């Protein structure tokens, strides 16, 4: 199982439901990846960054992860699922 974590942008003006997107990704990848919120000192296989729009620049460098997968629109959810599945 991949050890994955998630970071949301702050959500000032999201173009889609970021919480729903996260649930979709989690559910779709339940067989290959486990998700939790980031903890200090923990290494993750993948960091899923869920941005509400394309204007958010943060990559959360303080989180130790081999891969960073970004969703910044509803259209990007399926691609993120495919990318994480390929890592498994």
């Amino acid at each position, binding site marked *: 199982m991949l050890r994955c974590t*998630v*970071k*949301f*942008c*702050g*959500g*000032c*003006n999201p173009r889609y439901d*970021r*919480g729903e997107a996260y649930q979709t990704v989690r559910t779709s990848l339940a067989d290959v990846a486990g998700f939790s*919120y980031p903890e200090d000192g923990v290494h993750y296989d993948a960091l899923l960054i869920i941005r509400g729009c394309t204007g958010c620049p*943060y990559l959360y460098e303080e989180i130790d992860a081999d891969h960073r997968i970004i969703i910044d629109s509803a259209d990007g959810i399926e691609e993120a699922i495919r990318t994480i599945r390929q890592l498994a």
Partner: protein
Amino acid sequence: MMTKDQYIESLRKLKLNLYMFGEKVENPVDNPIIRPSLNSFAATYELAEDPQYEDLMTATSHISGKKINRFTHMHQSTDDLIKKVKMQRLLGQKTAACFQRCVGMDAMNAVFSSTYEIDEACGTKYHENFVKFLTRVQDEDLAVDGAMTDVKGDRSLAPSKQADPDLFLHVVERTADGVYVTGAKAHQTGFVNSHEVLVMPTISMREGDEDYAISFAVPTDSEGITLIYGRQSCDTRKTEEYNDIDVGNKVYGGHEVLVIFDRVFVPNDRIFLNGEVKFAGMIVERFAGYHRQSYGGCKVGVGDVLIGATALAGDMAGSAKASHVKDKLIEMTHLNETLYCCGIACSSQGTKTKAGNYLIDLLLANVCKQNVTRFPYEIARLAQDLAGGLMVTQPSEADYRNPVLKPYIEKYLKGVASVPTEDRMRVLRLIENMTMGTAAVGYLPESMHGAGSPQAQRIMIARQSNLEMKKELAKKIARIQ
């Protein structure tokens, strides 16, 4: 950080001397008129707990290195200033009301940098006092009210020249341990929901006004403080038997109070300015600048809800495809996003103060607020235009709940057949609430006068407009020697 529930419980411990409608309020937390404002304030705690919003709602303390609520943070970069505006937009979207905690954040950032520079010039220890206070606020995640606006009496007279010396808050007695202050602060947003009040002078001062150049922090339930709750239009709808549809926004709201200080004692280590008249203006200017930036976030978030409600009203009436409806919604969006542009712009052009926190670009912050004194009114006008007269003529919820009348109301207030009549009534009441009811206090007159009335921004814009440089530019192009 405190959770939402811990915050609410902490308010129950305050012994506020609060009056409303002529009577003492023994339990503000559960009072139906006050509770919506508490809920808005509590949202600043609730969202900070949610991973979906923590990136905006929290920051890292420059003092302790710990995660803190952004409302207690000293901005450490222009990125922090931008995140502040985004956080305010977010909270405006979630509450459709004034969530009240910005004023304390803005006051703390202004006093933090000002005290550093006062100490540098005067050899005082105000910054040390303030950092001690701030450390406690951050560690305990306290709610702080920022109190600036004095009642001012005769506007043509200086504080020390007023017929009644108490019309500007001032020191009435000095002891070895501290000072006693008397006076009143008007329009105090969120005071009832705050643990501490940070008091600042209201205007620049001159020699002779030393007793009025005072800044300090005390608990909101200090002996000698009396609060009189501000009346809002339609406020008693919250106490009616049927108080769901007609209030427009059942959960959230805002409040202001008149705060009277009658010989309130301030210990020495809680004093941040005490007689240094030439620095009163610095605190005022910085606080006003931060607060004028704030309105480029919070009012935009509230505007988002109003635009959404107006679009829904169009959908429910079957008018959504009319070209003028679409165009008016575009205009509302254009105005709203223009305010946001100003909030982001003055943040991105911020600079580091000597104390280390960041200050917004004051010219752009004043331009931001000047637009805020106008655009929400136009957005509200367009909302009322598109909502139609039913917004203010529809029957009450009590009529709607009457079994004899309900079928008539269901039948004749129906718009698009698939939309329940009750839904249409709800969205129209929301528009009424935001443009004429309790929430209009925060969205309209507060946009006009909060953080300073329009003329105050124009004075600041004139001061910083760099007109001589502009003249030189014109001379050069026109080839004038």
